[in-house]
């Protein structure tokens, strides 16, 4: 039984069947990649996992509990953090403040009225955020406005913010999209390091095969809203069905 169990999930947008009977099981403490050509339904699937979309049919269980019908912040509090395709950070806040917010969310839950408390009294939060920035090699940027950083740094900050919540499952939506080769390699190294140092399950959606094959332990190939195969990277590489899905019937 995996930490994330997706059963018979279907989602229809008008006349388009975006997902049809998707079954997926992500085992705990593994890196699981979901790949597939454009329009295969990867992002739709991800949105169904985090509460942005509600599937028409099927069930999504995280650690034995259903996530369906819950709002994104509730699902996040259950232990699922999400990294977006374009980094979503608090652009008008400093890097340090960006890092403190998830620390508050982890400690205080989804809402707490701490309106006249002094930030200096939140020593545990400050220490945790500083340690996390240290881990991400961003300690020197702590006073910077986060919107003025490079894209690679924003991505790094976003991943750090997700980790600060100590999630059990980290979802990454094309984390290297639009990145230069060097930045991509940095991101791969960072994710590898995270994998080694923490008890965390990572599910990753990716186009870049280099990223997929250097990170993942299991791969699910999605095409036209249904999973084609699920296997180890070695077996996926030469799989005829995968080639067909990516290169078309004639190949």
């Amino acid at each position, binding site marked *: 039984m995996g930490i994330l169990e997706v059963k018979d999930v279907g989602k229809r947008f008008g006349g388009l069947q975006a997902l049809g009977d998707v079954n997926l099981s992500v085992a705990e403490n593994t890196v699981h990649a979901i790949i597939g050509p454009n329009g295969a339904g990867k992002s739709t699937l991800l949105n169904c996992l*985090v509460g942005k979309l509600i599937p028409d049919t099927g069930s999504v269980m995280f650690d034995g509990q259903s996530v369906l019908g819950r*709002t*994104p*912040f509730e699902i*996040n*509090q259950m232990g699922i*953090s*999400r990294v*977006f395709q374009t980094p*979503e*950070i*608090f*652009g*008008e*806040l400093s890097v340090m*403040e960006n890092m*403190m*917010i*998830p620390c*508050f*969310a*982890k400690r205080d*839950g*989804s*809402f707490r*009225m*701490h*309106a*006249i*408390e*002094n*930030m200096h009294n*939140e020593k545990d*939060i400050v220490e945790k955020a500083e340690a996390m920035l240290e881990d991400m090699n961003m300690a020197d940027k702590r006073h910077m406005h986060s919107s003025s950083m490079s894209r690679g740094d924003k991505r790094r900050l976003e991943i750090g*913010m997700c980790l600060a*919540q100590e999630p059990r499952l980290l979802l990454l939506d094309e984390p290297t999209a639009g990145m230069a080769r060097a930045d991509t390699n940095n991101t791969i190294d960072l994710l590898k390091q995270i994998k080694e140092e923490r008890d965390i399950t990572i599910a990753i959606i990716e186009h870049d095969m280099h990223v997929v094959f250097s990170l993942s332990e299991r791969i699910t190939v999605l095409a036209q809203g249904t999973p084609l195969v699920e296997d180890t990277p070695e077996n996926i590489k030469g799989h005829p069905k995968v080639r067909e899905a990516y290169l078309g019937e004639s190949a």
Partner: protein
Amino acid sequence: MLGLNKKDTSLLVIVAALVMFAPFILNPFPSDSGLAQFNAGYPDLMQRFVIFGIFAIGFNILFGLTGYLSFGHAAFLGVGSYSAVWMFKLLSMNVIPAIALAIVVSGLFAVLIGFVSLRRSGIYFSILTLAFAQMSFNLAYSVLTPITNGETGLQLTLNDPRILGESATADGSIPVTSLFGLEMRSTYEMVVGPWAFQFNAGYYLCGIIMLLAFYLSIRIFRSPFGMMLRAIKSNQTRLNYTGLNPRPYALAAFVISGMYAGLAGGLMASMDPLAGAERMQWTASGEVVLMTILGGTGTLIGPVLGAGFIKYFENIFSKINDTVLHNWFSFMPDGLEDFVVFLIHPFIGKGWHLTLGILFMLVVTFLPGGLVEGGQRISRMVKKKSDDDTNAKTTPAE
């Protein structure tokens, strides 16, 4: 000091000094000089400065931090005023229970309106708040006449019960508002040569309350809660996916700012115990938006500056009339004098809105950060200049 950092403490001290010495600062011209009409140091206007300062500080907690632009904040001001006047009618002429009730009632009212309006964001939120405020205005103006006394406005009468006070004074007039016996209208006048400085009890009560409100707003700005509010403005998606629920945070900010508005309304009624529906009109809601933007949205001191600026213009420019202008330009030849007066005429008296509009456009265009940005630019220029001076002085010595 008081849980503030050095910079915020000095800001608070400066504001406190300005409030305490306002009767001097706002009265720079001798009362017999021609410039005396630019003096703003009389109780009525000074009270308005600080009361609208409170209103704008509260509005800024919502708009400046969360970015939710409410176009209906005058509704809370009006609700606060009505509550306070009812307290004067039913309980006593002491301002404390009146102000307390004003804050509580406007807070409850804000919970109701905020709960519905905050389901939408951006322009839809603004329109919802505007609609609610207009509904409140119309209710106060006609439907709820038994409570609000309709278009006449709610006033004190000799028949009011005033359980803990007296319905009428010994000489048969309506009692005046007071703070445990200290009458709000009592004014001490200090005459120094040609100057007459007025120290009004009501003004000082409002001033002290404004300082408390200002202090509280600094604490909110610097608190974790304030950081969450800025996070709402910055990126709601990320906030949601960081396990935080934006709605109660926004609602809390909305209610706090509604209570600030209620406090301002209560103080208004405490200074002058009557309340009319026009206080809830959309122009009044628009005014506080102008004050905040003019002063500097999201800055601590900006809204207070904006409120003072607009109230000064409203009361001083509107008093200049053609006779005054003719006096000023009497040194010119007759034809030219008439022509100049004719040119300036639309911008003064009842036309002060035109002047304000032009100033507002200039500020928003050239100083998007409001008056606060203007101040920062000037101080930076002065700093740079003094640096240049010291450099210039040291260079020849080398």
